[in-house]
């Protein structure tokens, strides 16, 4: 097969119907542009919304839940004899919500190759004192470095430097809601009361904004050591171990595994936040459906134009066949036309799609709930460009294939005798 010759014939036919060809190509360009822009934008938005929760949520969280013992002493006694005990109003044993042997557990988890990072946490129930009024509060004692590395802590610190938590003793980063209620500024000293009734004074070194008002009114952050000091506990006192994995999907299985291995409660992110997965999936599905619909419509345009071309160029096709072009050659001529439209239309579409998504990415998008986001989020993933490119070629090939097959079956005798 002489590719250059077929290409030349295809191009001459293209040039003969330049306007219609351009319209067809613009159809492809438009659909690919929208496909790319839509998916980049939707996916950017998805990542943002998911990130709102997922980035800040440990994949597996280990904690010790205060609950009644499942095995009451009387059960040991009545085992194996025909006796059944009813115990009402069972109380949990007097124990702290700490994870026992936390140091060893953290070391063991760190050695696990599936784990990307571990951050210990101490959760302290407190009251913020404003004059004579007490506000409910929760102070999270965190390992500042690990917390930032795993959960992008600094993105949510809207004022002050997050590292000051580590560097300045007895410091606190207040939730922005709580700070507004207390009318405090950076550098001020606030007083809190612990559940035991101890008063502690802490220096405000920053403000924290999660984007969720209820959280911002209650939560604050301090260093692990400060939290342990507030509670009057030793430095092995840890209430939560947050684990981040390389592969999020392993979380449910690993949560079960850790639950048995370390005898602590373990929840995984899927169980805790299943609705986010569903939302993302539906949004992505809709974007793909719209993009593919556009492409199919463009495909019909190409189909139409090729059909028209074949009717108009019937004589030419007949003479090509009479002078030695086989049906396959003729088919390739029309497939080449379709692919050319698809290729250049698609290429421009990818380019315009990139430009359009870049423009959308410049549109201001400011919302109180997302302090780090200033413009619309765009995901510039090359995957979309690959899918868009492949799809433009595949649809135009299919749109071209059927008219091309028809052209290849034209019987030159009928055309030539018909004159």
């Amino acid at each position, binding site marked *: 097969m002489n590719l250059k010759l077929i290409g030349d014939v295809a191009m001459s*036919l293209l040039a003969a119907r330049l306007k219609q060809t351009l319209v067809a190509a613009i159809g492809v360009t438009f659909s690919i542009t929208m496909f790319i822009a839509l998916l980049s934008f939707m996916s950017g938005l998805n990542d943002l919304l998911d990130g709102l929760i997922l980035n800040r949520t440990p994949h597996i969280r280990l904690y010790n839940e205060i609950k009644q013992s499942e095995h009451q002493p009387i059960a040991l006694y009545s085992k194996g004899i025909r006796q059944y005990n009813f115990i009402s109003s069972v109380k949990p044993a007097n124990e702290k919500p700490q994870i026992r042997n936390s140091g060893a557990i953290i070391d063991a988890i760190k050695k696990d190759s599936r784990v990307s990072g571990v951050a210990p946490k101490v959760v302290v129930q407190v009251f913020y004192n404003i004059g004579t009024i007490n506000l409910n509060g929760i102070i999270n004692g965190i390992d500042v470095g690990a917390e930032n590395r795993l959960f992008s802590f600094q993105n949510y610190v809207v004022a002050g430097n997050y590292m000051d938590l580590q560097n300045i003793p007895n410091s606190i980063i207040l939730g922005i809601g709580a700070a507004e209620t207390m009318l405090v500024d950076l550098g001020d000293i606030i007083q809190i009361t612990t559940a035991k009734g101890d008063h502690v004074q802490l220096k405000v070194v920053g403000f924290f904004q999660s984007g969720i008002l209820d959280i911002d009114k209650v939560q604050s952050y301090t260093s692990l050591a400060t939290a342990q000091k507030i509670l009057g506990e030793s430095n092995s006192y840890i209430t939560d171990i947050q684990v981040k994995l390389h592969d999020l999907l392993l979380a449910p299985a690993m949560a079960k595994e850790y639950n048995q291995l370390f005898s602590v409660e373990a929840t995984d992110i899927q169980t805790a936040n299943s609705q986010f997965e569903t939302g993302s999936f539906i949004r992505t599905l809709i974007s793909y459906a719209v993009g593919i619909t556009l492409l199919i419509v463009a495909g019909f345009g190409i189909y139409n134009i090729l059909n028209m071309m074949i009717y108009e160029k019937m004589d030419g096709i007949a003479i090509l*066949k*009479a002078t*030695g072009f*086989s049906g396959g050659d003729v088919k390739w001529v029309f497939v080449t036309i379709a692919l050319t439209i698809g290729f250049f239309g698609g290429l421009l579409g990818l380019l315009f799609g990139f430009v359009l998504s870049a423009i959308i990415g410049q549109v201001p998008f400011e919302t109180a709930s997302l302090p780090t986001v200033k413009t619309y989020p765009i995901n510039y993933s090359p995957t979309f460009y690959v899918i868009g490119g492949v799809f433009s070629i595949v649809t135009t090939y299919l749109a071209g294939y059927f008219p091309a097959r028809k052209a290849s079956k034209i019987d030159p005798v009928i055309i030539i005798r018909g004159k």
Partner: protein
Amino acid sequence: MTDTVLEAVHINKYFHDPVKVKVLTDVEFSLSRGEFTSIIGKSGCGKSTLLYILSTMDTDYEGDLKIDGISMRHKKESELARVRNEKIGFVFQFHYLLNEFSVLRNVMLPGEKLSKRTTKEIESIAYEKLKILGIEKEALKRPNQLSGGQKQRVAIARALINDPLIIMGDEPTGNLDKKNSEMVFDIFRELAEVYHQSLLIVTHDNEFAHRTHRIIEMEDGRIVSKA
């Protein structure tokens, strides 16, 4: 190399639509190299039908067709296309030139399809053929800028590009006036006598036919004389 370029062996042909009609009955003849043959007959006697079978474009027939001693009976569509490309030159009643290409490129196309030579060589051969036909000056024009007679000469040049074994014509002068018909005939005769080109021309122009070397006369799908 045989001296027979084309051989029809007991060719029968039916039309099936709307009822089965026999259009060709036991057609049998052969053509030798350098022969200038015409097929004549009344309208509807099957002479064009026969030509399209002989040209391999119509494959729905009984019997056998041998071109250059090779049977065409069981060849695939693409192999037949190759035979047409290499061994047969066509001249139709209508010129069938492609307006998107220059005259030169129109002549070159079958040569490029055959791709036995480089494009440069094909181009120079195409010029040569146009020169034989006296239209080399029009080489770079578009076909729609030429007169009817010139177009038919371009079509003849196109038929010659691959030095075919045989040139087939279906009423090649049917659309031309007297003067141009005369010229086309002279070209054919020159091809036959000077270049020893075999020609097989279907015509209903008896005057044209009587000046060819050999006349095959048909009537109702049969050959009545092949002197």
